[in-house]
């Protein structure tokens, strides 16, 4: 057998070249107290809790939602019966874009990629039998975060859950929607105002809510590099902090409840270094730049999830193995919450069996692998500490690039950030094609015979009756409600939208009167108008 060829240059996604061996000379300048600190201590490089998973293992939160609220309620209960301790709700596209299920633009999309929500009646059904004072729930909702979270608060109120026991995390990160994912509705400025309204209202009324979850995840899924994912996430967080400071809220009144949602699907050590560097940079930014004094304001609390980008259509069972590596990377990165993509995700809405495999993967990682035995087990590794420092420099360089665009908000308005993400996606695709980035069974070790499509996944059988049932329920709700009360509430939303006050109160009134999401979103659209996408390739 011929000797294996010497491996060519290794360059990480962030553009950092990697040597074959690292030693003490690579971390000569490292100062433990200044650069790392103990776990739970500033600057939190080693994690935000003193004992990390020895004290409490990460929360397991699979992303679930499809069809009607009733169907989704059933899947929630299934996962909870198997040990999942928190929910992560997926909404269908009409809901995410503020359209009712009977809107012509919702044709073919009702209940497809998540559950359909038209009125409070749907939210009541989705969480029926689920005690909102005991379960923590994240809502993947952005431009419609204000009305959907208002519905959630209304259900919690009806369940008589004490406000200080309600733990809800609406994503509420509109800036990343303009960059990736695309469920924007209003122009950038009024969209930001709504983000601020929800943060302010929640901070005052629901002290344990996490009213914004800053996402690097979707931007990375759209194609950016590891360093850009962290840089854009930090820049977006800074934009929201500035927004709240301008409203006159002291930083320590809202910053402790800011959370993050990032992916970890690349090379394990690069991902770990990205999070260690990110925590350090965030802590310093919050303390030094924004003057936060509450240590909780300095902590980068994160949901670290998989990311379907890691997974392949070819030989989907291999994705189960990839999922296990993702879980390992997330744990070594110090995740507070974990979520994994399912092996069938490239094909279909996940089956309950695939969801269970993902949940079991996280449980095996937590219970069996030993990765949870001690905090930040990679600390002190020549390679990991060196790489953490290099990642920090790369992230800072990307942040400087954002500054040159006059900040993330202006970069989003002009489309410059979107164009850069698309450019990186194309570069990445070319590297996959050339084999520079290997993918087993896709561009290397490819099976001689390729089936047209794997038979190992069960395709989700989308039922067109879902839309009919949803529209029938919507009609019923419209008939049974007090139309005059709805009209008054919608009028108040328009009035407040023209002013500068917080929109959450009038939205909550409208929700309780069973105004539809489409009506509420249109009332605001009447005043705010619609976003015009800067289309840049």
């Amino acid at each position: 057998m011929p000797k294996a060829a010497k491996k060519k240059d290794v360059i990480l996604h962030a553009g950092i070249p990697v040597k074959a061996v690292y030693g003490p000379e690579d971390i000569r300048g490292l100062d433990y107290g200044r650069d790392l600190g103990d776990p739970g201590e500033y600057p939190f490089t080693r994690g935000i809790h003193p004992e990390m998973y020895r004290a409490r293992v990460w929360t397991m939160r699979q992303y679930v939602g499809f069809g009607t609220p009733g169907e989704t309620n059933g899947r929630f209960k299934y996962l909870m019966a198997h040990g999942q301790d928190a929910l992560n709700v997926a909404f269908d596209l009409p809901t995410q874009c503020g359209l009712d299920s009977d809107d012509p633009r919702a044709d073919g999309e009702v209940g497809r990629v998540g559950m359909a929500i038209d009125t409070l009646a749907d939210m009541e059904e989705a969480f029926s039998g689920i005690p909102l004072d005991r379960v923590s729930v994240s809502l993947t909702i952005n431009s419609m975060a204000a009305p959907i979270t208002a519905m959630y608060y209304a259900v919690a109120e009806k369940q008589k859950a004490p406000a200080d026991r309600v733990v809800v995390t609406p994503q509420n990160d509109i800036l990343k929607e303009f960059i990736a994912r695309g469920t924007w509705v209003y122009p950038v400025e009024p969209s930001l105002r709504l983000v601020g309204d929800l943060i302010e209202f929640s901070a005052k009324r629901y002290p344990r809510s996490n009213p914004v979850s800053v996402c690097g995840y979707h931007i990375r899924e759209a194609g950016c590099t590891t360093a850009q994912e962290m840089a854009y996430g930090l820049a977006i967080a800074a934009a929201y902090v500035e927004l709240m400071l301008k409203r006159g809220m002291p930083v320590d009144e809202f910053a402790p409840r800011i959370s993050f949602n990032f992916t970890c699907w690349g090379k394990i050590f690069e991902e770990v270094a990205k999070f260690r560097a990110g925590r350090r940079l965030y802590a310093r930014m919050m303390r030094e730049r924004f003057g936060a004094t509450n240590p909780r304001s300095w902590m980068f609390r994160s949901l670290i999830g998989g990311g379907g980008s890691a997974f392949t259509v070819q030989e989907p069972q291999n994705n189960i193995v990839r999922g296990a590596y993702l879980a390992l990377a997330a744990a070594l990165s110090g995740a507070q919450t974990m979520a994994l993509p399912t092996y069938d995700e490239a094909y279909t809405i996940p089956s309950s069996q695939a969801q269970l495999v993902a949940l079991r993967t996280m449980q095996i990682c937590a219970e069996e692998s030993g990765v949870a035995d001690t905090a930040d087990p990679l600390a002190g590794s020549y390679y990991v500490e060196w790489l953490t420092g290099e990642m920090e420099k790369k992230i800072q360089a990307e942040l400087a690039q954002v500054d040159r665009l006059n900040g993330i908000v202006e970069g989003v308005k002009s489309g410059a950030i979107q164009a850069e993400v698309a450019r990186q996606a194309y570069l990445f695709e070319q590297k996959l094609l050339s084999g520079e980035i290997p993918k087993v069974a896709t561009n290397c070790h490819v099976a001689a015979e390729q089936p047209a499509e794997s038979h190992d996944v069960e395709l989700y059988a989308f039922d067109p009756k879902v839309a009919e049932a949803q529209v029938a329920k919507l009609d019923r709700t419209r008939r049974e409600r007090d139309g005059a009360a709805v009209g008054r509430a919608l009028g108040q939303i328009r009035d407040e939208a023209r002013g500068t006050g917080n929109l959450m109160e009038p939205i909550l009134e409208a929700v309780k009167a069973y105004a539809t999401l489409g009506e509420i979103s249109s009332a605001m659209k009447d005043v705010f108008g619609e976003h015009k996408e800067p289309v840049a390739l």
Partner: protein
Amino acid sequence: MTERKLRILIAKPGLDGHDRGAKVVAHALRDAGFEVIYTGLKRTVAEIVQEAIQEDVDVIGLSILSGAHLTLCRQLAEGLKAQNAQSIPVVVGGIIPQRDVEPLRQLGVRDVFPMGTPLPAIVETLKEYAHA
């Protein structure tokens, strides 16, 4: 023999906001010498038909990852016919299960590029349209 430069409209119909695939394909086609017009997100079928006619494109390429491809392709076929523009070929890519490929062809879709289709295969297939 000089080949005519093909004009293609890459369109995102419906509410799906995932545009990585559409943009990557647009970049690849541009590098391969196509004239590419990209609509941006959340275009209605009526808007796509209008733009295809105005821009006098040779092909319409839809990118759909939401699962709504059958509904949207049916609407597009009807929309093109209503404007007497059914001669413009339509191709579609995205999360399209194998079982939907034949129904899409029945709706008049010329080529389907399901998930996992290599980029060069898309480019080569579309180059053939210059000879059509």
